[in-house]
């Protein structure tokens, strides 16, 4: 394709081909500190293509294609080309990843042990992971937690953090020195800005961690902690996984092992500071 970009995030390499220069330029800026795919061969392909050849120039509109795609996915305007690339990369891993159980979760690490946070969009798992990283935890990822099917360990997938609306201000305050991508305003997901994870954490992206605690955080409610039974954690994680069904028996085994190995807690928190405090308190009580 006309413009190309390749990057490795944790165990997975991606290549992005684009009909336009702009999305590739944005990716090069955001992923400047990341390694290239192993052996020069990417696991997944993303294509950013004009919906019609003349739409490369007139009201340019980006179709997200690749090894895997959703027929019903609507094209995005070129101004949101970076978002299209990010969505395309997420989609490839979500539908194509088979080496790990993929959980829609953020993860941070301390002393070789990982904290997993999962929840619906808006629960604050991205923001909380950034705030914890600012408080000294290693940032492992805000989108997918990768559970190794053989070892049960968590593998880091530290993509640039996709921050939405109010989360952007919180992250800018916590990490004033961080590199941010351009503002993407008025996207289908609201106003978005990407933040590059700390370079120390990127340098350690190949270090796995043993899962130690599973949290279901919920932002905006008074402080409260509730124990989540294994059965409930199991069911909620099947829903939070993008490839649980596709992995068959191995996915089941891996998820059972996870919920047996780590305690699960639902944590309500009114604001970022009390969220971080609650996590620190629960972590030290382990």
């Amino acid at each position: 394709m006309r413009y190309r970009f390749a990057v490795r995030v944790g165990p997975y390499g991606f290549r992005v081909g684009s009909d336009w220069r702009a999305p590739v330029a944005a990716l090069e800026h955001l992923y400047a500190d990341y390694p290239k795919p192993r052996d020069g061969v990417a696991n997944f392909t993303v294509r950013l293509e004009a919906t019609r050849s003349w739409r490369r120039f007139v009201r340019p509109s980006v179709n997200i294609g690749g090894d895997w795609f959703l027929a019903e996915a609507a094209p995005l305007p070129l101004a949101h080309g970076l978002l299209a690339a990010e969505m395309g990369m997420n989609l490839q891993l979500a539908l194509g990843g088979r080496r790990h159980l993929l959980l829609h979760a953020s993860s941070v690490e301390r002393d070789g042990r990982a904290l997993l946070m999962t929840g619906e969009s808006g629960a604050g798992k991205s923001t909380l992971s950034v705030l914890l990283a600012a408080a000294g935890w290693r940032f492992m990822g805000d989108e997918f937690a990768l559970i190794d099917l053989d070892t049960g360990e968590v593998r880091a997938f530290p993509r640039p953090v996709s921050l939405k609306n109010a989360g952007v201000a919180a992250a800018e305050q916590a990490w004033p020195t961080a590199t941010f991508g351009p503002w993407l305003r008025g996207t289908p997901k609201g106003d978005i800005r990407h933040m590059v994870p700390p370079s120390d954490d990127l340098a350690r992206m190949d270090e796995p961690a043993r899962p130690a605690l599973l949290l279901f955080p919920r932002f905006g409610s008074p402080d409260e902690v509730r124990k989540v039974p294994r059965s409930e954690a199991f069911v909620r994680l099947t829903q939070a996984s993008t490839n649980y069904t596709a992995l068959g028996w191995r996915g089941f085994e891996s998820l059972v092992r996870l919920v047996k190995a780590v305690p699960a807690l639902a944590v309500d928190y009114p604001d970022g500071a009390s969220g971080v405090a609650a996590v620190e308190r629960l972590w030290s009580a382990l």
Partner: protein
Amino acid sequence: MKAAHLLVRALREPQSVADLDASGWQDLIGVARAEQLVGTLAQRLDGLTLPDAVRAILADATVTTEQGRVAALWEAEMVRRALAPVGCPVVLLKGTAFVAAGLAAGRGRSVGDTDILVPRAALPDVERALLAAGWEWVKPDPYDDAYYRRWMHELPPLIHRERDRIVDVHHTILPLTARIRPDANALIADAVPLGNGLSVLSPADMICHAAAHLFADGDLSGGLRNLWDIHCLLDEEFGTDGLEQRAARHGLRSAVLRAARLAYDLFGTPIPGGWRVRDGLDPLFRRRLLARDGWGRGARRATRFGFYVRSHAIRMPPAMLARHLWTKWRRG
């Protein structure tokens, strides 16, 4: 070398991948994925010395097709249970048949929908039994529904509401509007029982069906995989004995011979010397089969468009086609 040629070469002579550089590998994997042959490629390259990244990618592909095989066999069993009370023969077709019968064509093959063949007279009972067992219409539409029932070789697709898997119920192997009319009774009468209440087509009929699917129906998209199926059936399973006569009975002689010639040309399939004649159209089919670039995109737009037009022209007579397209266009 062009990406699609890389794939053909790697399937035909696995050792040939030794000379690939990173971009060659990337193209090969890209085109193999797009042609749904990456699981097959993984099987073919198994045991060779490969770059670590490539080995990991192919291992993932194997996990995918292996789970696909398990799911396909389970789905076939679900169909068997649902249709057992009907008491009619149920013949598995295409990918499900290859994996259920343990054929070489099923090794590493991705299997999507469950395709079955039943006697036309049994269709109403089969339909009722499947609906009662949890399948439902994919997208109910009165025109499409009427069109399928009157002119197609299959019921409108049914999807299972819990397992999210599609079953295509055929009563023959080509649309009723096509000029060629295969002998559906013979297909069912000569089917080979698997011993579990399900059957697969006889060897020659399996090849006839694959060739019909490739050249007498559709626009050849995904055709490389169909041709690889045919190669495996001819080369590793059944050979060509009696095939020409059987194909002639179904009106598929020319499709089967073309499939054999192209399989010989691309994959080196052994075929009788008398079949290796020159055919003016073969290069065009070959060109269409290889219309894919290393990014997985369709290449050769004009060729693809030509075959798209052809797929409609061979499917139905012109006046009927005009009416059909007009109706579809008006409905958007």
